[in-house]
């Protein structure tokens, strides 16, 4: 886990309101949240030395999509939990091959998020 007890989440999605929805869900757990608009900025977060426990990764984004960002993070040896969240069902295998830990179809519901957080032991 990232250095501190607070769970740190990186939201990677080019939709303003999708990020808003995820943030509101995650605020209920008092997590620390950072948001970026594309895969390239997601990578930069880690290059800059930031640590995260969880990444919520969209697929279709400008500059760098979620699959490429996932593959790049794994290539950098970043062990963060990556959950792909997209409405592109056909991208599941690609995402998992790239190194995602879980794949979810949009829309993300609060119960889906809770289940994921429990599966990663982020909820005490």
């Amino acid at each position: 886990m990232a250095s501190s007890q607070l769970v740190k989440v990186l939201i990677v999605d080019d939709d303003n309101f999708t990020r808003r929805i995820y943030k509101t869900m995650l605020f209920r757990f008092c997590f620390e949240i950072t948001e970026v608009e594309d895969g390239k900025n997601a990578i930069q977060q880690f290059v800059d030395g930031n640590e995260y426990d969880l990444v919520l990764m969209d697929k279709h984004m400008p500059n760098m999509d979620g699959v490429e960002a996932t593959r790049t993070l794994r290539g950098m040896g970043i062990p963060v939990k990556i959950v792909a969240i997209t409405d592109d069902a056909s991208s599941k295998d690609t995402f998992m091959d790239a190194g995602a830990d879980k794949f979810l179809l949009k829309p993300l519901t609060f119960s889906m998020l809770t289940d994921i957080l429990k599966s990663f032991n982020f909820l005490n």
Partner: protein
Amino acid sequence: MDYVHLRRQAASLRKGLFDQGYLDEQFYQLEDLQDDASPNFVEEVVTLFFRDSARLMANIDQALDKCVKDFNKLDVYMQQLKGSCTSIGASRMKTDCSAFRECCRDENIEGCMRSFQKIKREHSVLRQKLESYFQLLRQAGPVECATRPNK
């Protein structure tokens, strides 16, 4: 002012949005996220949706105006729009987005144009209805404490 009447109007408008298929159960998810910590959450998210979707639709308009149609690019834009519609529960728009994408796959430009006109109409109607709904909620206060979010 008759707040009970206004609340009933708001409730009726909301029910109509679901009964007529404009919204699906995903919208309930958004309403469930609204609480004292985020009292205007639904209206804020809806406002963001219409702002983002208008931008995407302008991109699609530009792409459709070009002499040489890039169906891949059109499909990517529409996939984004469809994703947004899915997240907010805009059911009819989501269906129309799927129809547009089918036309892209078939490289059927006339079909794309027709679908897109439908999407624009649905977008406009949904926007009007939701704006009316939130206006009623604001007027029906103070219980709902509906206030216009800062933009």
